């Protein structure tokens, strides 16, 4: 019986190969710590190096870093794994997933508790307030460990500025100035694009609101309670989107999409101004074949108090619940290892992500690094521009991943001209509120 035999042979081979692989990995007596992350490119190397350095620094624990795809993919995989009783120890979750994670009290282990129980040194005050605040409860208890943080900055093409007769060392500061500059750039230098934005909701709703010190939602942007409601149909928001919808018609504004896929228009020289993450640095440095710089986000000068401070993007490390104490000890050791000032300073200067401790920021500052690399300090200056207010210390909305999709849909409708800016933002509020209510209902029971 040829078929049967060859089949069982293949099958056995597959089975054996499968078991061999699972058995081979944790051969030693080390305690293995699973770390799921979403880092690609140079940042992936950073993650792997951190794990390797930690593993080399001691012999009790072994951190195993696994790339799980995009931020949503990673979070999705982590949630599925938790439901199946198979969660990793450490999961990197992007900033918008924060509320979902925080609400899942039984599913996570607060970092503050973790460090205390393991007897590791941990001082919440040593972290930059804008960073720590984002990942802490209203009472100041830090729930997750900030890992890679960024903020929104405005990247611009100095060569294009020169060509259009603009001063490359005095980038526009306000939105009206950006619009004017974009029109001139489009007329004289870059015929297909005046300016663009990536991460449309993060830049134009979340950062925009915080930077103008106007609420995204009630209850301190949701930090003080799940019964929050959105406020993004304010006159300032509507005016901003009405402006964008007007400018998109003649390509003074070019819509760059919901994620960072449109960032290539900047490095290729097509769009001379792009608002996106400060983490875009590595990409610009590697691929932009022109003279470039970045500057703080623009603001509307008629809004009182603007510019306020910016808020975070990026991700933090969450510790999943239900693991044995000795494994938590390893996680705590790893976090202590990551918080080390020298290591933070080095991470910041190499990856372009922001330092998370005050000491690391001071250390880099005093080393004179920013004189040579002013572009890495722009987001830090934005974050620390003013002491945070109730509208600017962070945001915490459940289901924000889906809400961002809804907002994007409405913004796209406004830019397409199928809705007015007012209609679109009203719908963004009501549809977003429905998601908030659903979240409130499922978590507060």
């Amino acid at each position, binding site marked *: *019986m040829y*078929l*049967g035999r*060859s*089949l069982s042979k*293949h*099958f056995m081979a*597959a*089975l054996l*190969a*499968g*078991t061999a*692989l*699972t058995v081979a*990995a944790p051969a030693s007596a080390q305690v293995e710590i*699973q770390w*799921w992350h*979403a*880092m*690609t*490119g*140079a*940042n*992936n*190397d950073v993650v*792997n190096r951190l794990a390797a350095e930690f593993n080399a620094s001691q012999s009790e624990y072994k951190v195993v870093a*696994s*790339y*799980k*795809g*995009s*931020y949503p*993919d990673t979070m999705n*995989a982590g949630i*599925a*794994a938790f*439901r*199946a*009783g*198979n969660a*990793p120890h450490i999961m990197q979750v*992007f900033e918008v997933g924060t509320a979902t994670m925080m609400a899942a009290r039984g599913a996570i282990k607060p970092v503050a508790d973790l460090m205390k129980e393991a007897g590791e040194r941990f001082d919440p005050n040593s972290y930059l307030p804008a960073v720590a605040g984002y990942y802490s409860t209203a009472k100041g208890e830090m729930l997750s460990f900030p890992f890679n943080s*960024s903020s929104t900055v405005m990247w611009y093409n100095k060569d294009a500025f020169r060509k259009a007769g603009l001063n490359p060392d005095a980038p526009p500061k306000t939105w009206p100035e950006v619009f004017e500059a974009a029109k001139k750039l489009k007329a004289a230098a870059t015929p297909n694009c005046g300016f663009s934005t990536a991460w449309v909701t993060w830049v134009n709703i979340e950062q925009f609101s915080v930077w103008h010190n106007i609420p995204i939602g009630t209850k301190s942007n949701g930090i003080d309670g799940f019964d929050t409601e959105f406020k993004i149909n304010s006159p300032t928001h509507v005016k901003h989107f009405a402006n964008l919808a007007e400018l998109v018609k003649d390509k003074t504004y070019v819509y760059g999409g919901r994620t*960072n*896929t449109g960032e*290539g228009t900047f*490095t*290729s*020289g097509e769009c001379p101004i792009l608002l996106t*993450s400060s*983490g*875009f640095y*590595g*990409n610009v440095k*590697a*691929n932009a*074949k022109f003279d470039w710089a970045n500057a703080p986000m623009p603001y509307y000068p008629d809004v009182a108090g603007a510019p306020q401070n910016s808020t975070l993007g990026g991700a933090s490390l969450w510790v999943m619940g239900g693991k044995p104490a000795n494994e938590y000890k390893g996680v705590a050791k790893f976090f202590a290892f990551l918080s080390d000032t020298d290591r933070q300073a080095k991470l910041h200067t190499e990856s*372009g992500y922001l330092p998370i401790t005050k000491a690391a920021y001071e250390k880099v500052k005093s080393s004179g690094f920013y004189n040579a690399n002013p572009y890495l300090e722009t987001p830090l200056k934005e974050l620390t521009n003013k002491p945070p207010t109730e509208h600017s210390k962070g945001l915490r909305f459940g289901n924000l991943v889906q809400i961002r999709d809804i907002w994007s849909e409405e913004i796209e409708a406004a830019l397409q001209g199928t809705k007015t800016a007012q209609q679109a933002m009203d719908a963004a509020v009501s549809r977003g509120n429905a998601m908030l209510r659903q979240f409130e209902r499922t978590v507060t029971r």
Partner: protein
Amino acid sequence: MVERQTFVSRYLPHAVLLAGVAIVAFPVYLALLASTYDAASVQNGQMSLLPGGRMAENYTRLIFTGTSSSTREPVGTMLINSFVMAMAISLGKIAISLISAYAIVFFRFPFRMAAFWLIFITLMLPVEVRIYPTYKIVADLRLLDTYTGLTLPLIASATATLLFRQFFMTVPEELVEASKIDGAGPFKFFVDTLLPLSVTTIAALFVIQFIYGWNQYLWPLLITTRDNMQTIVIGIKKMIVTQDALTEWQLAMATAVLALLPPVFVVVVMQKLFVKGLVETEK
């Protein structure tokens, strides 16, 4: 009766078919092109329709060293994983469907039709309906990150059982009679008579199921957590989506080329059997 050939009737089919071939091949040609350029040329859209000079470098880096931008694993490992998965799924499906169809067609036993329907209805349970619960079961069985977990849940096949059933029903009754008169039991009939008759059907199914297995996306994405268990279709998807980093399109496209070569090879090489088998089973 031979028709008079006009200029149009003579060349029209060639023109249409050539156009078809060109349209079908163009996306892959472009991918192949992109895989011969450096990152910046592709990223900034400065490719031409002729190959660049980085082909050897890109592919070597991809297959042996791995790309840091997407995953540490070199594509070579992913190719092996995909191959094991596709083989296990296609052979497994054929084996279990063959014997189930055999039981349903050539035996009479209580609940025969019920058994048939039980298998048939699985056609109506798309993977999206049950992905999380299925994941949980695989996790409970401690099969995450194993080839078994990757393949076993995908091995049941209503389609293959149906196709074998239809094929078996076309087998002349006389053959069974003759076999019985020769004193052959069910096992001997299966091996000596039925299997040889089924070769084309099996070959056709092998091609289809190999491709099905190779092209799996959602399932391996969820159940493989270790880098060294990744398959190539996931690998390419992970290369496109990046956070704050450049999508290395030239490497992604090289991966796309590598990802589609093996199944395309199978279809092309087994083309005759594949087409013949498909037609036979479809009737």
